């Protein structure tokens, strides 16, 4: 029970972090049809910016400044790079962001070196929040969950209850009509791209010190975020939320489970020995398979439900 609850809490907090990343990706994709390959790189930038600003003005200001700075970088990328290749179609846009991921990683190497930086959890949150049976749950994990939920609420209110949200939603489906009504659709695109990147930056600020801030952190999380977007259904925010939680919880549980088909068979009274055919498959424990579970999940979803969990269109 103790293991179950703690793993569930850890899984949910990891899932919420994934959601903070995938929400920006999904917003940008549903709006502009651009898959931002460099999205995880903006997450990394967020962590490094936060590290640098927290050295100067402390964590709480960094929480505000770093996402904004990442958002500005994103807006500049949209305005001066993406908009240029927009007329060539979606594949060149994807290629551009792919090249950008390389550039950002090298930029990080250039400025902060190749090893990890010492980006710490703030002292005010560096204590256990509560103790469950015998395991403590860190306060910072609780803070991460709180920020993610607040962000979810803020996006929801922004999209559904404000005028700019209305324009964004309308540009999503009817860009020409919105333009005809006198709105500057390219500027809306720039704001959405910058905003999406800022969300990734925010995830970086609170994820960078919970995990490790190093140049490999973008690659570590990048492809998982794409899996989340496909599994949830391309362009569906609710789907991304569901898929992030699902993948976060599955991965957290899987890493801790040391069972394999051998133990399963032993429980049913059979025995699997190294002489059994395909022994390499049977002896794998769930913990060993954990890294590929999201991708297996992706393949299964594509075979049985190609539009994703909550997607509305076949892409």
């Amino acid at each position, binding site marked *: 029970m103790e293991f179950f609850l703690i793993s569930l809490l850890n899984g949910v907090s990891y899932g919420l972090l994934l959601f903070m990343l995938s929400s920006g990706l999904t917003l940008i*994709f549903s709006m502009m*049809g651009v*898959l931002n390959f460099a999205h995880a790189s903006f997450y990394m930038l967020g962590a490094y910016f936060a590290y640098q600003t927290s050295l100067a003005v402390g964590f709480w200001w960094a929480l505000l400044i770093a996402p904004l700075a990442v958002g500005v970088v994103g807006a500049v990328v949209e305005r001066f*790079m993406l908009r*240029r*290749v927009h007329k*060539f179609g*979606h*594949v*060149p846009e*994807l*290629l*551009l962001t*792919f*090249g*950008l991921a*390389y*550039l950002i*990683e*090298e*930029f990080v*190497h*250039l*400025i*902060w*070196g*190749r090893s990890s930086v010492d980006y710490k959890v703030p002292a005010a949150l560096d204590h256990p929040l509560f103790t469950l049976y015998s395991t403590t749950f860190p306060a910072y994990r609780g803070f991460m969950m709180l920020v993610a939920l607040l962000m979810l609420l803020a996006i929801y209110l922004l999209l559904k209850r404000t005028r700019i949200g209305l324009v964004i939603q309308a540009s999503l489906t009817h860009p020409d009509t919105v333009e005809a009504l006198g709105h500057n659709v390219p500027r809306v695109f720039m704001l959405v791209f910058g905003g999406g990147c800022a969300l990734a930056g925010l995830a970086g600020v609170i994820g960078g010190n919970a995990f490790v801030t190093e140049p490999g952190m973008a*690659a570590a999380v990048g*492809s998982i975020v*794409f*899996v989340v*977007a*496909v599994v949830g259904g*391309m362009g569906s925010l609710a789907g991304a939320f569901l898929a992030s939680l699902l993948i976060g919880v599955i991965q957290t549980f899987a890493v801790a489970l040391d069972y394999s088909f051998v133990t399963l068979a032993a429980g049913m009274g059979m025995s699997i020995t190294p002489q059994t055919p395909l022994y*390499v498959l049977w002896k*794998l424990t769930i913990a*060993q*398979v954990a*890294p*590929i579970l*999201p*991708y*297996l999940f*992706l*393949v299964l979803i*594509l*075979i049985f439900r*190609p539009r994703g969990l909550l997607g509305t269109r076949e*892409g």
Partner: protein
Amino acid sequence: MSTTVRFTPLNPARWVIWSGFALVLIALPLAFHQGFALTLMCQIGTIMIFSLSFNMLLGQAGMLSFGHAVYSGLGAYIAVHVLNMIDKGTLMFPVTLLPLVGGLAGAFFGVLFGYVTTKKSGTPFAMITLGIGELVGAMALMFPDFFGGEGGVSTNRVAGKALLGLITYGPQIQVYYLVAAWLFICTAAMYAYTQTPLGRIANAVRDNPERAEFIGYETQRVRYLVLIISGFFAGVSGALGAINFEIVSSENVSAIRSGTVLLFTFIGGVGFFFGPMIGAVLFGLFIVVLATITKAWLLYLGLFFVLMVMYCPGGIAGLIMMQMPLLRARRFKEMLPSYALGVAAAAVLLLALSAAAEMLYYHALEASASGPTMVLFGMNVNVASFTPWLVLLAIAGAGFALLGLARRKVTECWNRVMGEIMAGGLQ
């Protein structure tokens, strides 16, 4: 202007080009016979097959794949295991035909994974191939019996009976001619493929999937078939790489490998059949030559790629083909002064940029250990002082000004000459 299709069984230009290609392949080792150059050429040859097979997807069928190394890598693994069996004597098979084994393995995995990936096109296809690539990359560490774990699977290419009693593939020069022969065969086969109905309909599926469906082709099936064929050639290149290096490791199936082939194929040019071959040569220059000179080579590569995507989406092949009408009208030399200006501006900018990058890298990685003074282009430069940065800023400013001027000149000259050629063509 109307074009009529004529039956020309003997196409002289084609004969000249292909026999020229064969002659170059035969003659190259005569000019570059050092061990280093031979290994480099073998590597470029395998990458050429790999990037041509990649362009079958990206350039000819509009399928952007982030996981193409899966097919070449798994082909390489199967080939290396077969080679080990030949070496142990449990299997009789000529090493010369080993790339065929790799190719069949690549095609087999194309059948397997393509069933899932080709269900989608465009951006979702790209994401799914990324997922499959990660899946196989992670599996490489899960099954050490097959993939050899961290160290990979090593082999010995001098195995089985020698071909004609002479060729054992021990000396590098013999491996070079093996790669060259397979390169020629594969290039010819892949070019022939572009002329088949499948190759043509793949272009249609790239340009307008909806219309392709309306004339009765199932786009998903076309994509599936193209992926299988492309997987075959990727597998051939994987097996050749295995013979060349005598080791296959998890790096061969990794996302890094997939990303590299994408970068260089695009830089070479996806719009023309020969574009990826230029990309493969650049690969040799970047990965092997530049990487030994500077630590910042990935930055240069990324920057080069992004600039190509933004300003020159046809790649280098596209740039070359743009000059064809000028060459045909014998007016290319009128463009030369403005081009020279452009090249000069680019050189000045490159100088400033590379100096800045080298100084930054030195500052980030080495300054703390060996002091603030580095040797740059034969000069002692103190990276902690302001002066060198100001000098670089001035050089960069001059470069930008020159580039702006060159751009105006090129556009002006291009419009004038092309306008005259077009006007002449209409009369």
